[in-house]
Every structure is written in C-alpha cells, then in structure tokens.
C-alpha cells in the first residue's frame, strides 16, 4: 500500500510487542512530535496501529522551592537562630532572633506563619520561644525539598516523597505540578501484515508550480494536507459604506416605483429653500439659530423675476378667491440670501418651477436622496448634516388615500408595515401627516417621516396646475431602524469607527 512519508516512518518505527511513546518515535524517525502524533492518528484510522493515552503528572520545584532547598526553609532558619539566642530556656525578643537569622522581606512572614504550625515553638507578644525537642532534621517538608532538589519534570511516582507532603509543598507554592498526555503506539495485526506485504511512500507536494503542471508530474503526486480548519490572516478588502448602501437601496426601491432622481445645489437661495415652499419669512425655522447662512458668498445672482413676484404675492395675499396670506414681513433681500439647504425640498421647488429641466407634465414622480444641513446639537441621533429622502408625485386629483397607499408600499419594502398617519401641520402641505411605524426590534412607535399634499399657495406661483403629494424622512433614521445602531456619529462623518463599518452585517 501507499502511505505518506511520515506515516511510513512511524509504522516502521513502531513495534507490535511493546508500546512506544510518541517522543520515542519522534526520536527514532527524526520527525517533530506533532507530525508523529498526526501520522499515528491517521494510521489508527486505517487500523494499522493502536494508540493508548494516559495522563502523566510530573513535578518540579518552583524557583522559591529551589531557593529553600539551597538555603533551607525559613522556619528552620528561624528555629536555629532562636536556639542560638537561648529561646529554649526563656522567651527572647523576636526582633533579635529575626536579625540573627538573616531572614529578610517576605521570608520573615513565611517563617513566622510556619514556625508554630510545625511545632518549633511559639510566638507571643513579640517574643519567641523554641521547643527544645523539635528536630529540624525530621522536618518532612525540608527533607522533601532536598529529595526534589535538582529534579526536573519527574514523574510523580518516581520520587520518594509522600502525597501529603507534596500537597503541602504545592500549597506553599514551592512545587509545580504539570499534567501531560502521553500517547503510546503499538502496531496492530493489520499493521504487521501490511508491513510484511510492503509499504511504499507516496510523494506529497506543497505548492502547485508551473513545472509540476507542464511536466505532467502532478499526476503522480499527493498534495500535502493543510489544516483547513485554522483561521486565516484577517483580510478587509473594499466595501461600500453602509449608509451609502442603504441610500442605494432606497434609490432602487424608488426607481422601481417609477420615481426619477433630482439633483441640485447644496448652497442655495432661501427663495428656493423656503419662500417657494410658502414658509413665512418670520417662521422660527428660518431664524439664524436653525439655518446655516453663508458669510461668503451672501446672495444669489439671479432669480426668475416673475416667479419672485408670484411667490411674494402668495405670501402677502394668499391664493384663490378665498385665500389669505401671512401677516408676516416679506423681503426679497432675505429671499436671495444664500444658505446650506435645510431640506431637499429646494430641489423639488426648482424642478416644479420648470427652471431645472423645463415644464414637467403630469403624471410624474421625482425623488432625491441627498444631504441637508440643520443647525442642531450634535448627539447620538442628530447630525449637523444628514441625508434626506424626498419624494413627490404629481397627478390630477390626488387624494390622501393615494398618499397613504404610496407610503405603505415604500415602507413595506423596508419591513415596516402598519404605518399610522398622525395629522400634522407643515406650512407647505395640507393635509399633512407625520408617519409612524413600529420599530422592528423594540416594538416602539417611532416617527418615520413627514408628508402631505402641497398647498395651492405653493403650487400656484410655481405654475403647477394639478396635485402634488410629497414626503420626506432622514435616511439615517431608516438606517438606525434597520440596523439598530445607537450612535449615528460612529457611522457618518470623520468621527466614524472603521471597525464598526467593517463589522456591520451586509443586508440586501
């Protein structure tokens, strides 16, 4: 039969008559013991050898034990110093005896704690007495130390010390016990038979090389086996950012629902960000506390003049026969002021006005997943800049039911069903709804978006003559719902933790 080289060596070195230890086989075959063990197990599997295992206990002195074997036990040294000082007659001051003994540091405590235990005398109120009948030469522990001196990893049954004394030395930390598994190999009958019939060495190969392939040699070789269970070196490789991946998922869903993507400036005039949205200029969200106004540059160059006029009229007078405007100031200079957009609805107003890609004919659906900027406090759930999902549908006669149906469809794609619609107020939509959904893990009702039908005061100046319903939500919110992240700052921004990004489970 053909066997691996190491198996052949072990088989030949083993005997049918007596068990040979792995170490002995390693010596005989000149192979490392672990290779021998591996080969022996493989042979056992083939039924060619038998393996017997037993656990051997060996002992050695610790460094401390070796020291006491040389210098004698501290309590013995204390006893001898006490005798010297005459403590067998009358108590002697402990300080004097210790000084004379030459004991130092922790050894003093060790001596004192074992002195009385072993009957060398007693210690009382700082004085020491010595028992004249005590015999250090009969001290079992001292004798054991002497017997073990110079012994290294001796099998426990090979030393002439009783178990009780060994236990005591172990307790005192003077002794080290080591357990090791010893395996012994014996040839089986089948092994003997096969050996007689002749065993050949099969050649093993480590690496597949060009030579091996071109020469055709690969046909006659056996490949060295690897430990295929072992962990390989850690490898990172490239990976799309988890938030980006979520954004792409959202985009996929929306494109699938017939939405077209918008894009436009991050720095924009308040006109597009707020005025076109029928947000009164003295609305609290438009104060400098909430928005990032720009110091440089300060104002937009051009705005479509007639649109500005229509928007101003809507703000001041309202729209329609029965319309009323806001009782708020309106200043074109403020409308022209530049800021980082606080929502991507600025893209919607640009598209709806026809300025971006020309007049849009209904029906139409548009979306964006883009960054917005809010002057908030940075905390685990709020960032100064985050992604907003924005979408709108333009058609004749849209109803609240259409709006609800669209959102149910959208959120269902992310596993969020049972949406609740809470009537809400936005300056630019009526009716308006906050959308609530059940958190997939906590079961809590959480806000997952804001929506509504755009007001006529917004649409009429933009020249839109049919209905438009819209909604928005923070992408980060959806991400946190989907993954259960606790601190958004670990994910998005320069404070991110690469490890977290690397470890986050891929979803699809």
């Amino acid at each position, binding site marked *: 039969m053909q066997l691996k080289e190491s198996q052949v060596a072990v088989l030949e070195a083993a005997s049918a008559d007596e068990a040979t230890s792995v170490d002995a086989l390693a010596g005989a075959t000149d192979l490392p013991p672990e290779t021998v063990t591996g080969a022996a197990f493989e042979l056992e599997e083939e039924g060619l050898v038998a393996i017997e295992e037993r656990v051997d206990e060996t002992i050695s002195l610790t460094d401390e034990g070796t020291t006491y074997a040389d210098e004698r036990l501290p309590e013995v040294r204390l006893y001898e110093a006490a005798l010297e000082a005459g403590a067998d007659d009358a108590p002697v001051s402990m300080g004097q005896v210790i000084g004379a003994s030459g004991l130092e540091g922790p050894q003093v405590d060790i001596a004192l704690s074992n002195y009385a235990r072993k009957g060398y005398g007693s210690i009382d109120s700082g004085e020491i007495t010595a028992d004249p009948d005590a015999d250090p030469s009969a001290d079992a522990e001292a004798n054991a130390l002497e017997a073990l001196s110079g012994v290294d990893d001796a099998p426990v049954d090979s030393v002439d010390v009783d178990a009780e004394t060994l236990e005591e030395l172990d307790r005192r930390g003077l002794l080290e016990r080591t357990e090791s598994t010893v395996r012994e190999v014996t040839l089986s009958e089948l092994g003997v038979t096969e050996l007689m019939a002749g065993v050949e060495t099969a050649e093993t190969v480590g690496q597949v090389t060009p030579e091996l392939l071109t020469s055709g040699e690969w046909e006659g070789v056996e490949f060295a086996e690897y430990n295929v269970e072992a962990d390989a070196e850690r490898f990172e490789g*490239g990976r799309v950012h988890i938030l980006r991946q979520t954004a792409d998922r959202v985009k996929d869903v929306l494109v699938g629902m017939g939405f077209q993507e918008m894009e436009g400036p*991050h720095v924009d005039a308040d006109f597009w960000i707020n005025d076109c949205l029928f947000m009164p200029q003295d609305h609290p969200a438009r104060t400098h506390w909430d928005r990032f106004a720009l110091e*440089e540059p300060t104002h937009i160059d051009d705005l479509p003049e007639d649109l500005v006029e229509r928007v101003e009229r809507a703000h001041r007078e309202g729209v329609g026969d029965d319309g009323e405007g806001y009782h708020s100031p309106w200043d074109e200079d403020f409308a022209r002021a530049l800021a980082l957009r606080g929502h991507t609805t600025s893209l919607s107003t640009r598209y709806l006005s026809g300025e971006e890609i020309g007049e849009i004919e209904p029906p139409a659906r548009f979306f964006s997943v883009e960054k917005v900027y809010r002057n908030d406090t940075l905390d685990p759930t709020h960032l100064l800049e985050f992604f907003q999902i924005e979408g709108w549908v333009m058609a004749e006669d849209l109803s609240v039911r259409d709006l609800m149906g669209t959102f149910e469809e959208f959120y269902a794609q992310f596993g969020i069903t049972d949406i609740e619609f809470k009537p809400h107020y936005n300056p630019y939509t009526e009716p308006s709804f906050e959308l609530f959904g059940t958190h997939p893990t906590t079961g809590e009702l959480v806000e997952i978006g804001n929506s509504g039908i755009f007001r006529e005061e917004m649409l009429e100046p933009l020249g839109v003559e049919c209905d438009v319903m819209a909604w928005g939500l923070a992408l980060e919110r959806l991400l946190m719902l989907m993954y259960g992240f606790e601190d958004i700052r670990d994910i998005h921004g320069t404070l991110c933790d*690469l490890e977290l990004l690397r470890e986050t489970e891929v979803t699809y």
Partner: protein
Amino acid sequence: MPTVDIDPDELRELTGREEKSDDELKDDLFGLGLEYEGQTEDGAFELEFAPDRLDRLSVEGVARSMRYQYGDARGIHVPSPNSPEWTIVVDDSVPEERPYVTGAVIRDVDLDEESLESLIQLQEKLHATMGRKRAKGAIGIHDLTMLKGSAATEGNPTIEYVGVEPDGDRFVPLDSDAEMTPAEVLEDHQTGQTYADLVSEYERYPAIYDDLGLFSFPPVINGRRTEVSTDSRDLFVEMTGTDQWTIDKMLNIVCYALAARGATLEEVRVEYPNGESGGRELVRPDLSTKTKSVSHDRIETILGIDLDPDEVIDLAERSGLEAEKREGGADGDDLVYVVTIPPYRVDVLHPLDVIDDLGRAYGFNDLEPKYPDVGTVGGRHERSRLEDSVRTQLVGLGFEDLLNFHMISEAENFDRLEIAPDDEVYGAGEPPAIKGPYSEDYTMLRTWVTPSLLMVLERNTHRAYPQNLAEIGFTAAVDDSENTGVAERRRVGAVLASHEAGYEDAKARLQALCRRFDVDLETPPTDHPTFISGRTASVMIDGEAVGVIGEVHPKVLVEHDLEVPVAGFEFDLEALR
C-alpha cells in the same frame, strides 16, 4: 417641537368626561395631533403640538377641541362681550417699529392656582409661537382694580400707549423691589436682559400709562403694581406688536380661554393718532367670523371618498365650524359650502385648510390606502450613476468607501495639510464660509476630500492596517461665475495607509481606475505642500490637470498622529465622464 403641559384632571373637568382614563385621554389627544411626550412633576401631560392650532395652547382650548371630537359640542360659539368702558389711546410718540396695540377687559374671573398657571402658560406659548418670541406680539395681563384711568371722555377711563425716553419715568417691574427706568430694566433686570435686543435699538421705548404712571413696558415686562394673583377678579389684557391682525388673534385666543372659565368679556376701544392711519378707532376683541367657500368636489378628491352633503355639514360642525350648502356655479350642479370659521382660528388661510379639518373629523386613519393609478418611468440622475459606478470600481480595487461631513474647519481643511486658501495647488480655493458658526469644527464647506480622509485615519490609528480609504465626495469653492456664487464639485479622494504604502500603490490603483473608464492618464511631477517633494505628481486626465497624487508628507502624518506611510490621490469626478 414645542410642548404644552395639560393637567388631565382639569381636562376631564372642562370636557365633562370624568370617566376617561389617562390612557383614553392620551389616545383622544393623539387624534387631535397632540402627541403625549411624558409627564411633568405635577402629573400634567406634556404634549407635543404642531404650531397651527394655537387655540389649543392651554387646557381650555384643548378641552374645547375634545368636546367637538366627542360630539358634545357642535358648530360655532361666539361669546358676546359687553360694551366698552375703557379706552387705549395711542400717542404720537409711540415707537414706529411697534405701533400696534389691542386689548380687552375680562370681568368676574375666578382664578385658582391651576387656572392662573394655565393662563400664564398660554401667555408664554403664544409669545413663543405667534408672538415670535415677543417680537411680533407681546401680551400684558393686569389686575384691573389696580388701574386708574382718567375720565377723559365722559366717565370712560383711559390708558395711554406711548413712547418714552429710555431714562425717563421710573416704575417697579415684576420680580423686583426697586424703582427702575426702562433703560435700567434692560440693564439690570433678568427679564429685561432677556428681551433687551427687541427694543434697545429704538429711539423711544414702548410704555403704557394710567393716571398713576407707567405700569407696563412692552414687550419686556409689566409693572408690579398691576400684578395678577388668585385674588384678582377683573383683568385688563393689552397686547402690542408689529402687526394688528397678529395681536388681535392672540387676544381672541386669550379671551376664549378665559370665557371658557366662566368670565365675562368687555370690549376696549383703541384710538390711533391722526397720522398715517388717519385717527383709526377700533373696538376689540374682534370676534367676527369669516367664511371660506369650499367645493364639494374638492373635498371628495382630496379625501378620496364619496360624501353626502349632510355628512359634510355634520363633519364641519364636529370640527367647530359651520357649513351651509350653496348651489352655485354657471352649470348649476357645482355644489359649494360656505363654511364659517370661528374667531379663535388663526390657521385657516385657504379652503384646503377646511378640508383638512373635515378629514380629521372623519378620521384620516379610517381611510383605506390605495396605490395611485398613474404610471411613470423611474430612473437615476446621470451624476449619481457616475458616482456609483466609480464607487463600485474603487471598492473592487480594495478601498473602503467612506462618507464624511461636507462642513469642516479652516484648520482641518488647510493648515493641517500645509496649504493656504490662495495657494496655487490642487485642493486650495476660497471656501464658502458659514455665517456666525456655533462650532469651531464646522465653519466652512470643505474645498477637497483628502483632509476628511486623513481625519478618519487619525481617528482610527488603533484599528487594523492596511486602511485603504476612498470617498467620492462633495466639495465647494467660491466662484463668481456660478449663479449661487459657489462651484460645487464631486471629487474622488483615496488614501492607502499601511507599513508598505507608497506612491506606486496609489498610482497602480489610479491607473486601473483610469483604464476602466477609458481615459488617458499622465502624471507629470509637481510640488504640493501636503506631499513629499519628488514623490508628487499632477493627475492629468485626457490632457487636463484635474488632481494630485503623492506620498503624504511626514509633517502632515505626524500632525495627524500617524505612524505609517500614507499615499493617496484626489481628482475631479467629472474627468472620468
């Protein structure tokens, strides 16, 4: 979102629904759009409110809405105030920035601790919302018995709204024992300091006088003499502001709240001087109603359901409105309702707002969702497709994709990378600057991506290397040729950080990327302070200099606490188009 505190016991008492449990109340409140946020120490509900229904900023208004919701009240109730006794005369000296005033007298109030607290809360919430932190409208409520009006016109007492010198008359403001001039109040009194900005630019400060002297310094603080307590029986309410409609509406809300507590309203005359407004004389509160014409067809299309006219009228009455059918229009079958709006409503600008009320009364959550039956074709924007395809390639080349902030500080963007805004190097440029930034970490938009990548490396020195990071990121620079004055560009930035990272590694990946997009790459040597001289090149794609590639300079590495070499490149995304 703003919140209002409502005592559930008071709510039960005012709605007459003693049997409602706290949880039932919470559900009913959610239906009104008032979301339960938590509880105060005194056990009151903290409710989040949307700032349209400002008539629900106190327990009285919330109770009124709930009575409509329960069907215990229907239609419109308008209190009838008694004829005016008191007059507010507006003097010529009133600051032109704050010319308007309104007022009302409230008799026979019965204030206990709770109702006084509720009144104070209502005042505060109105200040915060409609009053725009008192800038647009400010409320002063006084104990009427402490006022002495001179009998200017046949026994009718008068008080005067005037403008005073900042260092003129003295009075004792609330929460103080000392007499102060208005200027001293702004300087030394805590409330004065809070609201000083509202009037400090005025030449003359607004003030209200009775015969005994100055008793109110709007919009800052009232005098102590007329302070309202639980012993007060009759009240004088005055409001000043920058817009008559706004303060009149605020007044209506306060009047309705007090009338709900059983008080009697009494009108007040307001006489403006013979100026631009031509000696206008008003009688307030103005409790007139207004109407909106709402088409039946529009109601049905917005709600998406068919409704009987009787149902519409019923829904209107349950919303605290009144609706009347009017067969109108040229073809005669255009059904329209004339809907009457009560005087405390400030949010009804358009017929659509009425439809929203009808929907709420119907119960929006009772509507059955349906997917709109309109077909459209979806698609991605070209720029976002380009970004995505470049990102896919970068990930394939072994980069970990990042997403960093667009806002940054000057130090991070320039100084720590050894460049200045006006340097003639890639990445420099005048940044769009944020006005009055609150955090010194975020003062401008970044002009390039590499600084953000180095910040991530700096933050992650304890994580395993190699760290090969890339970002296709937004950058911006001031550019007069753009309509917004800002050129917004996407750039492709990449860094390789590991013990063996070098120029070649970066170049190899850049080459691969360019090959895949079939563009021609050249890298002539250049100098850039961020990178090591002699190991830096300009990225030229199809003959145009669009970026930089190199090994990051040790000075920059040490500045970022990095102990491994870093090579990287950055170039304009557009170059791959």
